[in-house]
């Protein structure tokens, strides 16, 4: 082992349990590095990474950029809003133009599911999927599982409920794959309209009642309602959604145990989670963000180790 089984990180679906453990062990070392007074190692000093963001992002983009810089890679950033994509350039052309400037790795977020897989087939670079439509967001799932492992010691055997808009969520799908590969039990909870029809076919339990779901679980991962991906109305009002599927302090306190609350961000305070919960000790939202840098460093480092130095 001790090497990833893949040359790209396109989704959790494509990697093995061993890969995930290797990423976690490597992330442990990087977590120590980013808590030093000088938070930088020279490993990727001859690697150039392009961050291609065809969709908005704050956390993921900053986290990747920081991870790349802490590994001493050269970084170029690209966002679709200010690029020639608007002039009609195709994805392959855009990326090949960037690669001709000797770029070794591409971190890409794209609104179309499968964009990363498509790119990996057609261009000569290591691709990291930073979110492709409602498909996968593998680094988010890795950092979520890593945070559970850090907080509870292990992921195997834990019960995790993912609450909210499962239908439009790439975070949900990647999380389900990662948690299952690591041996956790997963349930989803949300309005029926926001749950995919055949979700039970991939071994995920469904719970319509939030209180029951919370009583069952060790960890609750609260997702945001993705209004920007909704073409029709999926629930009557935001207020009704909050009453049925939002967590608040009173609800958490009424459980007979202390569960861990996670949120991948961005938070809609007062909708899926109230401020007093988001800022409480039970919430590990900011730990997730810190772990995100370490986990992404591990992913980039392990993928880069499979790129041979340029012959030319």
């Amino acid at each position, binding site marked *: 082992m001790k090497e990833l089984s893949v040359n790209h990180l396109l989704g959790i679906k494509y990697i093995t349990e061993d890969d995930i453990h290797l990423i976690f062990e490597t992330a442990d*070392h990087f977590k120590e590095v980013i808590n030093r007074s000088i938070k930088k190692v*020279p490993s990727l000093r001859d690697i150039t990474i392009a961050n291609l963001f065809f969709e908005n992002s704050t956390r993921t983009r900053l986290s990747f950029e920081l991870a790349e810089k802490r590994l001493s890679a050269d970084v170029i950033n690209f966002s679709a809003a200010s690029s020639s994509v608007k002039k009609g350039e195709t994805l392959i052309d855009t990326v090949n133009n960037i690669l001709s400037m000797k770029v070794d790795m591409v971190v890409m977020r794209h609104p179309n599911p499968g964009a990363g897989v498509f790119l990996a087939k057609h261009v000569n670079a290591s691709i990291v999927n930073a979110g492709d439509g409602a498909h996968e967001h593998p680094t988010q799932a890795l950092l979520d599982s890593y945070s559970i492992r850090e907080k509870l010691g292990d992921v195997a055997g834990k019960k995790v409920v993912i609450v909210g808009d499962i239908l439009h969520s790439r975070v949900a799908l990647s999380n389900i794959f990662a948690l299952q590969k690591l041996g956790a039990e997963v349930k989803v909870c949300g309005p029926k309209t926001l749950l995919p029809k055949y979700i039970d076919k991939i071994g995920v339990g469904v719970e319509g009642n939030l209180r029951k779901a919370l009583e069952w679980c060790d960890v609750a991962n609260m997702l945001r309602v993705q209004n920007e991906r909704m073409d029709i109305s999926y629930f009557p009002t935001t207020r009704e959604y909050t009453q049925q599927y939002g967590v608040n302090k009173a609800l958490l306190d009424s459980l007979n145990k202390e569960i861990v609350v996670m949120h991948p961000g961005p938070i809609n305070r007062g909708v899926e989670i109230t401020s007093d919960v988001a800022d409480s000790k039970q919430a590990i939202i900011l730990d997730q963000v810190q772990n995100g840098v370490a986990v992404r460093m591990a992913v980039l480092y392990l993928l880069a*180790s499979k790129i041979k130095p340029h012959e030319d």
Partner: protein
Amino acid sequence: MSQKVLLNATEVHIALQRLACQLIENHDTFENTVLIGIQPRGVFLAERLKSILESDYKMKDLKLGYLDITFYRDDFRRSNKILEANKTKIDFVIEDKKLVFIDDVLYTGRSIRSALTAVQSFGRPMEIELLTLIDRRFSRHLPIQPDYRGRQVDAIGDEKVKVCWKEQDGEDAVYLVNN
């Protein structure tokens, strides 16, 4: 594959005692000195020297850290050997301290070069010395020499020096292995 004993358990023990005494000559009570074992194999030697200094020479409050150099190596992506990181543990301040790097075998000097870079992430030490149990003469790629050495060895080409520790390998011994 044949192997020849370079140092047996008694000889390893004598060398360790001498290295401990040489450290005391230069560092007195170790008040301003910290020991750094280079991961992975230097740590056994460092732990051994620390326990000799504490039990045989009554040194107190010795500071010993572990330094992993994986992310600082110059053969990342260039070697087929898979690099595996180990734990770095330096939970004290090294600024303005005298550092002693401790490793089992000094060969090309590249590990020590990496360690010199790695340790800068923790501050600016006053000076850095190098202690190795085995110094493979004539095989250096870089201008790096030890300040304390257990035994100098003339090993050539594909010969390998193997250092065994009781804790890890069941015996204290140093072998010259011929592939």
